[in-house]
């Protein structure tokens, strides 16, 4: 399973390195979303800095829809999906590999967006450890849930419209928890009460992100086999 994971992830990342679609299209869209939010909130920096954590995660959520779509668009042509299915690779490995590739691309995106939030909205990062932990946990969850739904929608004629409709409500807890964790890390939370020390696994929001990621990774490992047969 792990060998297959590495194989599939390597394949997807190699395609990305050669085509640069996520780098040159999805990442700029994420930055563009940040700029559009700035237009919506006005030139005043105070509301932007206050809303920065939420805006960051909304941008990540939208961009992750695009990244997942790209991840399965790669398989759409030349019967690649059938090839993958017939290759004898463990379905769990295929799932983890595709999730890992999406997660790596999302991490790159998040680094760029974090810089964007700091530059454009004037946020100050108080605790680097905490945004990294929350970011990685949230990314793993988004990639796992996104890959599940991406595989579900792949091969359908309505996949472009179906995927966001299915994926975004399921990913809502990531938006909630990620935003709260970042509010603590960026110091825009106001009175958040006793949420534990920020960034440690004791932080309930980070724990929620970890639970979300673990649940969807486990579900994907179990369910990806039957799902691959469906389409």
């Amino acid at each position: 399973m792990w060998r297959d994971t590495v194989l599939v992830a390597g394949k997807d990342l190699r395609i990305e390195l050669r085509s640069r679609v996520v780098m040159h299209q999805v990442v700029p869209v994420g930055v563009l979303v940040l700029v559009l939010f700035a237009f919506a909130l006005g030139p005043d920096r105070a509301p932007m800095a206050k809303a920065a954590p939420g805006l960051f995660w909304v941008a990540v959520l939208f961009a992750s829809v695009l990244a997942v779509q790209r991840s399965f668009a790669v398989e759409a042509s030349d019967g690649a999906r059938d090839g993958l299915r017939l290759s004898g690779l463990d379905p769990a490995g295929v799932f983890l590999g595709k999730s890992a590739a999406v997660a790596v691309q999302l991490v790159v995106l998040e680094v760029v967006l974090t810089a964007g939030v700091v530059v454009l909205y004037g946020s100050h990062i108080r605790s680097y450890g905490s945004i990294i932990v929350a970011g990685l946990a949230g990314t793993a969850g988004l990639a796992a849930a996104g890959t599940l739904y991406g595989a579900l929608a792949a091969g359908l004629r309505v996949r472009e419209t179906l995927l966001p409709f299915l994926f975004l409500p399921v990913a809502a807890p990531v938006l909630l928890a990620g935003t709260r964790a970042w509010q603590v890390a960026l110091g825009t939370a106001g009175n958040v009460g006793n949420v534990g020390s920020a960034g440690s696994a004791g932080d309930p929001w980070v724990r929620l992100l970890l639970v979300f990621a673990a649940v969807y990774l486990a579900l994907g490992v179990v369910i990806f086999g039957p799902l691959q047969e469906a389409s």
Partner: protein
Amino acid sequence: MNPTDTEVTPWSPTATWVVRGLGMAAAVAVAATVWLGLWVTPPDQAQHNLVRLVYVHPPIAWVALYLAFGVAAASSVLWLWPRTRSRFWDRLAVSAVEVGTVFTALTLITGSIWGRPTWGVWWAWDARLTSTALLLVLLLGYLAVRRVPADPDSRARRSAVVALVAAVDVPIVHFSVDWWHTLHQGATVLNANLSPTIHGSMAWTLLLGFVAFTLLFAWMLAIRYRIEVLSERLLDSELDVALHERWAEGTGPVAGEPGGALASTGRRA
């Protein structure tokens, strides 16, 4: 031209009578709830006549959030489990989701009607409201997947996965929204609604309301299941009709043109 003579009832006569009895019981129970709720029970001291919504709103919410969702999730799992896989579970799941969607929407609507005079707003970002609204979107997503044309087996597989993924999400949504809310604002607004001491006739009416809407749900589920079976049959028979028409088209020119038969077999192959 009708190649298969389709039977209208997919059930045995006994089952038909059971469903009919269920429907009548539901109608009587709902009527009794309406009568007790509107005329017999007294108005509340604090909420006056508004309190009568208590006979409708919580029972509907119970049906939507626990019964319908539970049936849908359980039957989806039973479909995915290879040993218990049968079309029955798939039909039951879609019936439960569709009826459940109606009840979830009704939960939000009745809650909104109640919220406007008591809280002063149609919508509050309260934990329960928010998670119920997200649940409604998840159910609509299931129905959207259901509408995508596909062969029955892969459609069943796909929708069972959607139901399962959504079902797993529900507790996470519940907790996250709960924390989000409790961290956001101080006290929850929902506490003030149900006074702990409830008048005798009011308690009985509320209980009857739960029974009535549960019966209504069961009856609607059965009817929806029947519709699913019938629509599957309709689809099959339409397919048969279309096939026969194509075949008739293909064999038509055989008499006139010599190449007709060959062309049509080529098309069919």
